């Protein structure tokens, strides 16, 4: 047996994660055991997405690495483990608790710390930095507490107008504080953008309500009466009142361990490494922000990940070297696009600059080209960075005859289409070239974006390259003669979305006409329910109308949920979870009379299990007679709108969440969709209704309602993302009307809102443009369609009860309509019945057979 090498990684940040993941992926024989020692109390997380903590993301959602990675027997992760010493002689590191960890190879991945200038008042309460989850959590608590005390908006200031400073300013705004960015340099983001870009950026940022003060040197932070940060003083004699201050004045490498261990240090700090990421001790590597590589420490994630890959490769005997850092960046700060790439400041001799600026729209774009105006060297995009994904990989390539075409606004004429060279770097976060993506398609047989992502890791970090990855993949598939198949099944070549518009335009209303016109054969269990759902979405006719019953999926066919033994569950609608006592009593009475198992559902209503097919009409008759209606618990349709109790009773509520939930549930009841739809409404930010776990979550604010979309529970849970803020009730309806209708029209078969939203070209941003700015010109149509749905709603159970022909379908046996299914068998459990298991049937333990469960009706 070969010996296992012990690798110790100091620091549990982003680059440590990448190192561990790459080693586990590539060390096929399991030759290396990795111990990660991290100071923070949590597993590595996505620091780049730190600000999303304020838009309600859970810290867990930021975690990097699957649970399997950290559970792998060849990986040990110690949290709360601050390494205090490296003993190079003994090849051991020691942590603050005195634990010692011997290593064969040590990897330093300690990152950076947020640096604040030595300034009077920098240690006052109310002064923060912005680097870790703990930092932002503390900031949030402080701002929320101050807001309560002060009873006016908290005044926030950010010192530093770079990338981080703007993120922090956005975070303050998100917390309801005012925010002012104080920048020493003459423009914002002076490291990434030139003067023109800086001005465009200032204008855009100010439009969003963030004040900007450039050319301003902060001198001191003065305390208020309570000893907390209260006032800033500036070198020019000016002053400003503040309640909270964030330093975003840059980072410094956390190189103290290396310094004490006597490793070579960079001039401006950082542990010096060569192009293979080794320090001057061959048993120690350094990667990420702590490493001083090619003379500098780099504060970006992409080069850090590259270093992690190189260190792994070298440990496994590979030959890779650091290619030089790509310092390109595309950011979305407060919703404003900023990108810079390549030689953004035109430092190449003879370089030409091509500038397009639209001050009114707040757009500034610059391309830097070689002296013959053909080869792209770099560029800056502010306000509209849609061309970034295509342009960045083109650096060093010929842009063709008319480079200016690349600067025109999106949609004004075709962007030139140029085939990227294989070596062009498409995903800079994970260093994936165009060639690697082509290879994933041609050699690895990937045929969809999920496959390419899994195979190459392209687009798995910041995601800005996804549109380009998609395009390259599509072209390659086409070349290989592989049709990108969205076909519904063997009977229809079209995707659900295509079929939806085909049916809509042709105005066909029966399955036989539709399959004759657009498909082949007789259909199957895949296309029939899909078409039934489309017809229901389009016309809102009864699910059992005309030839539809035979098309419906299991549950819709009898308007109840089939359970494992073939019996059904019955769920009457309880809008918003508000229920009259007499309805509660009726439900209990029915359960007793029919011996049904009862359970409260997650959607705030009551489920009655164990009803036989032939019992459904009589049960529903009693419910309908008492004024209850179908809850559509069986449909791919609106299920429930869950709500908290809201301002009518709750001490904290700011809006009537129950009233809103009922209005929404009555508005969308019966709406058929590609998959089930769940909504939630909370009466304040405490979010007791867990609305962000729903397809649409509505959360009350002091000023109105925030709408979140695309949350799903289930297999891959997702929190809903913010769509609009502080809108009034009428707008809530309009926005949700359009969101749902657009989803219904364009999603795939059985695709829930979260993946739909993710895979939609341009993501949520593009969806927002469709429904808020009418970028496709379909809003009137969506509105009208939803209005039609609302007007034509009828309770489907009531309709069936009035129709003897359809009632005939609710019989157990065509030749013995009153005989219950003799194979049903139940046992008692906790005072109710449940289906008997196979062994219980065999052992004769069955207590209750269907014939003994007779009905009083």
């Amino acid at each position, binding site marked *: 047996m070969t010996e296992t090498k012990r690798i110790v990684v100091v620091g549990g940040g982003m680059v440590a994660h990448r190192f561990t993941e790459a080693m586990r992926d590539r060390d096929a024989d399991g030759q290396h055991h990795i111990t990660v020692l991290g100071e923070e109390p949590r597993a590595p997380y996505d620091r780049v997405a730190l600000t999303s903590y304020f838009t309600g993301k859970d810290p867990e959602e930021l975690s990097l690495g699957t649970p399997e990675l950290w559970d792998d027997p060849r990986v040990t992760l110690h949290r709360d483990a601050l390494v205090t010493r490296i003993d190079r002689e003994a090849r051991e590191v020691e942590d603050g608790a005195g634990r010692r960890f011997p290593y064969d190879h040590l990897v330093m991945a300690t990152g950076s710390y947020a640096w604040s200038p030595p300034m009077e008042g920098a240690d006052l309460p109310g002064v923060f930095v912005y680097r870790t989850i703990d930092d932002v959590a503390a900031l949030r608590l402080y701002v929320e507490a101050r807001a309560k005390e002060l009873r006016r908006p908290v005044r926030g200031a950010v010192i530093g107008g770079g990338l981080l400073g703007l993120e922090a300013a956005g975070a303050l705004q998100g917390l309801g504080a005012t925010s002012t960015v104080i920048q020493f340099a003459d423009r914002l983001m002076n490291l990434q953008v030139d003067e023109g870009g800086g001005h465009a950026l200032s204008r855009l940022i100010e439009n969003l309500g963030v004040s900007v003060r450039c050319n301003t040197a902060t001198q001191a932070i003065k305390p208020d009466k309570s000893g907390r940060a209260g006032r800033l003083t500036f070198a020019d004699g000016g002053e400003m009142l503040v309640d909270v201050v964030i330093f975003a004045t840059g980072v410094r490498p956390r190189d103290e361990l290396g310094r004490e261990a006597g490793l070579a240090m960079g001039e401006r700090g950082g542990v010096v490494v060569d192009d293979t990421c080794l320090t001057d001790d061959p048993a120690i590597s350094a990667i990420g922000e702590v490493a001083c590589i090619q003379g500098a420490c780099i504060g970006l994630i992409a080069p850090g990940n590259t270093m992690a890959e190189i260190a792994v490769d070298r440990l496994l005997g590979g030959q890779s070297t650091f290619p030089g850092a790509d310092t390109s960046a595309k950011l979305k700060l407060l919703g404003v696009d900023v990108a810079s790439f390549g030689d953004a400041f035109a430092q190449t001799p003879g370089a030409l600059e091509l500038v397009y600026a639209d001050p009114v729209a707040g757009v500034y774009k610059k391309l830097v080209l070689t002296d013959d105006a053909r080869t792209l060297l770099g560029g800056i995009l502010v306000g509209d960075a849609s061309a970034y994904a295509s342009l960045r990989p083109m650096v060093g390539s010929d842009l063709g005859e008319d480079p200016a075409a690349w600067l025109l606004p999106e949609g004004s004429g075709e962007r030139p289409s140029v085939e990227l060279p294989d070596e062009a770097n498409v995903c800079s976060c994970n260093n994936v070239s165009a060639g690697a993506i082509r290879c994933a398609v041609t050699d690895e047989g990937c045929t969809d974006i999920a496959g390419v992502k899994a195979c190459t890791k392209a687009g798995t970090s910041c995601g800005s390259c996804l549109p380009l990855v998609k395009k390259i993949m599509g072209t390659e598939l086409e070349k290989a003669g592989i049709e990108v198949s969205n076909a519904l099944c063997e009977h229809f070549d079209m995707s659900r979305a295509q079929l939806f518009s085909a049916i809509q335009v042709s105005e066909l209303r029966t399955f036989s006409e539709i399959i004759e016109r657009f498909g082949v054969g007789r259909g199957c269990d895949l296309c029939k329910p899909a078409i039934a759902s489309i017809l229901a979405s389009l016309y809102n006719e009864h699910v059992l109308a005309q030839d539809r019953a*035979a098309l419906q999926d299991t549950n819709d066919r009898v308007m109840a949920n089939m359970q494992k033994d073939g019996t059904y569950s019955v769920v009457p609608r309880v809008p918003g979870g508000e229920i009259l006592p007499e309805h509660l009593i009726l439900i209990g009475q029915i359960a007793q009379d029919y011996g049904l198992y009862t359970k409260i559902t997650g959607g705030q209503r009551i489920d009655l299990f164990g009803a036989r097919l032939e019992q459904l009409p009589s049960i529903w008759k009693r419910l309908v007679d008492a004024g209850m209606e179908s809850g559509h618990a069986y449909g791919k349709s609106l299920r429930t709108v869950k709500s908290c109790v809201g301002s009518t009773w709750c001490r904290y509520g700011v809006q009537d969440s129950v009233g809103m939930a009922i209005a929404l549930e009555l508005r969308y009841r019966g709406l058929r969709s590609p998959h089930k739809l769940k909504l939630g409404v909370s009466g304040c930010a405490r979010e007791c209704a867990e609305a962000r776990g729903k397809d649409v979550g509505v959360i009350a604010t002091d000023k109105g309602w925030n709408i979140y979309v695309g949350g799903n529970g289930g297999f891959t849970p997702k929190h809903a993302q913010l769509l609009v803020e502080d809108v009034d009730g009428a707008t809530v309806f309009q926005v949700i009307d359009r969101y749902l209708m657009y989803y219904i029209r364009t999603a795939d078969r059985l695709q829930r809102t979260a993946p739909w939203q993710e895979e939609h070209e341009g993501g949520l941003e593009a969806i927002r443009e469709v429904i808020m700015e009418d970028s496709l010109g379909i809003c009137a149509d969506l509105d009208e369609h939803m209005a039609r749905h609302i007007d034509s709603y009828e309770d489907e159970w009531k309709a069936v009860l009035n129709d003897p022909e359809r009632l005939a379908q609710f019989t157990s046996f065509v030749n013995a309509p009153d005989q219950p299914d003799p194979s049903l068998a139940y046992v008692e459990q906790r005072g109710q019945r449940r289906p008997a298991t196979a062994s219980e049937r065999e052992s004769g333990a069955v207590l209750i057979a269907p014939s003994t469960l007779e009905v009083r009706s």
Partner: protein
Amino acid sequence: MTTTASAPTDQATRVLVCAYDRLTPDLGVAALIGDTQVALFRLADGSVHAVQNLCPFSGASVLSRGITGTRGDVPTIASPIYKQVFSLIDGTCLVTMDKEPQAGIAPDLVVHPVTVDNGQVYIDLAGGP
């Protein structure tokens, strides 16, 4: 008129189930013959098929409530519980959905001969392929 979908049935052992008109195209019904449950389908082309009602993969008697369709030229029925697809011609399970049948139950269905005679549908449990 006589429409047969499978082998002709024996006049002596066949059992009358219902009138042909009681069957809606593509909408199955269950029939109870002695203790045996049968799933009965009239397809759009007018043919009538009968298979066991017991779904091998769930152990529930539900196939009559599945969706009819075709795979290639073969008429099929999909189980409403876990969506396995079976041939209505010979009962073969065409799509298992990566599941195993319940212990002691074969994955393929028993097919019962059906005759339509004078507008009446008969099933022959004794007969069979």
